[in-house]
């Protein structure tokens, strides 16, 4: 059954969209990530124009992160102060991202830029995750003791504007979360994702936040960043397709429930390893795509 998407201006099969939402939902439920980094490239594969894929995905991220935060809130897993600092950086970064997006669109390089940013971020994050999680799995299998320092000191701790984050048990410079929020916000706006797969590792490894508050806090700030991106994309570029967003959401809401249950049966580090493999696979696929000669060297610019 075909449905006409009013903003994307194409017809796509309803069940394909629901199914796509469902599959991504399962994965995001399993791994605790938004899954935007998979959804946006897949939408482009099924024929949604890249700018619409990006704008619309930002819209559905709002819904998924709201229900995520609502699940984490009662458990006290949200560090609001940290979230707000990340958010300030995120809002500035994402606003800049949307401006860059419009500029690239005018240059006619938006499709290429989106792919390139995907390759760079997925490649970097995927490789890091792969290394970390395989090491963890290896240690668990060998039953090696994990040594952890209680507190590490980097150059980061010498930065000014120190702030105390009680929930995260941190006393660090506010510049660090601000910068992370900014960078992730900008990339999210360009990639049409929440940015969970980038901000979560950054919070754990760069800020040293306890894992328990990371997911809730990142989701908290992702809500507002993606609201900002949705609004700016709708306003600047008219690339938010609400019908497409809702169809994907219906699928993913169901998928997430299945995914969460599946995820509970697998060891944490094994899950991270699987996610890392997935991230790297998508990255490699996009890289190959960049180097593959196009069927026709003359292409239409997207009308968006």
């Amino acid at each position: 059954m075909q449905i006409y998407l009013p903003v994307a201006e194409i017809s796509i099969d309803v069940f394909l969209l629901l199914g796509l939402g469902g599959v991504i939902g399962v994965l995001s439920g399993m791994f605790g990530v938004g899954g935007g980094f998979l959804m946006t490239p897949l939408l482009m594969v099924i024929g949604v124009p890249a700018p619409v894929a990006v704008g619309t995905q930002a819209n559905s991220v709002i819904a998924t992160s709201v229900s995520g935060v609502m699940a984490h809130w009662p458990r006290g897993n949200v560090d609001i102060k940290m979230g707000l600092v990340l958010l300030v950086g995120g809002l500035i970064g994402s606003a800049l991202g949307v401006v860059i997006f419009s500029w690239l669109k005018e240059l006619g390089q938006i499709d290429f830029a989106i792919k390139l940013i995907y390759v760079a971020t997925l490649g970097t994050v995927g490789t890091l995750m792969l290394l970390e999680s395989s090491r963890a799995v290896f240690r668990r299998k060998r039953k090696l003791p994990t040594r952890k320092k209680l507190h590490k000191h980097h150059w980061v701790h010498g930065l000014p504007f120190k702030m105390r984050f009680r929930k995260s048990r941190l006393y660090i410079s506010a510049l660090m979360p601000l910068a992370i929020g900014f960078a992730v916000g900008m990339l999210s706006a360009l990639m049409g994702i929440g940015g969970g797969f980038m901000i979560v590792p950054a919070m754990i490894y760069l800020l040293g936040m306890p894992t328990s508050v990371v997911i809730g806090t990142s989701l908290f700030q992702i809500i507002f960043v993606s609201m900002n991106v949705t609004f700016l994309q709708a306003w600047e570029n008219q690339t938010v397709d609400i019908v497409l967003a809702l169809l994907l959401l219906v699928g993913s809401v169901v998928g997430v429930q299945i995914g969460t249950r599946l995820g509970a049966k697998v060891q944490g580090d094994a899950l991270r390893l699987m996610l890392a493999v997935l991230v790297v696979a998508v990255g490699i696929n996009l890289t190959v795509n960049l180097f593959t000669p196009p069927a026709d060297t003359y292409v239409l610019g997207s009308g968006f």
Partner: protein
Amino acid sequence: MSRLATIAIVVLLSLGSLIGASLIMGSLTGRDARAQAVLADLADHLVAIHTGFDGTNILVFGMLPKDGDLAIVVRGPARPTVMHRKGSIAGVWVNTATMTFPNAPSFYALASSAPLEEMVAPYERDRLRLGLDDLNLRPSGRASPNLLAEWREGLVRAKQRQGLYVTKPSEITILGGNLFRSAIEMPSNVPTGTYLIDVYLFRDGLNVAAQSLPLAVSKVGVEAQIYALAHQHSALYGILSILIALLFGWIAHLLFRRR
């Protein structure tokens, strides 16, 4: 006095003869035109893009004089169309050049009662812009004639891939010698706007009669409202999209929270 009267009579007489002559000539040309004319109409003057829209057929039908060949051309509204040429930079394929065609038809399809080359003289094809080879697209930028031809062919190929420039001419069925009908396919991604459907009659390779029919392609119902809101009240649309997503997230949470 008598001179004035003569002048008046002369003027009246000449006027009368002029009117008479033009009447006779008018009826003659009128009869002539009727003998040559095609009479065509569309089964539907509106293509409504609704939620379940999955392409459609435009049904053109009518009458033609005994002898003659027919061609039907469907042209979508002219739109500025941006083309890119990809080139390899360090192995990576990037858009390396851009060309805009300010007046490219957004849709083009053709139906003919016989192969175009057999029924239409080449210069008539060119003049009427019949067929994809004779579209005569003019870009806004400058380029050498060779390069220009490449851009043009590239545009036609790209539009063909989207199904918006229809490659294969549709058939025109002629019934009983002077009734015709033709169904021209429109894909689901047709651009909206006012289309012009031209029905041409050819005799000995020359265009002897033509009729133009307008066709509206527009979004209707919810689709149209969403599109209009997104483009005319973008800020409001953005806020609404956010609110809907928030509401959706909340409902999802209520539905599935652990009991």
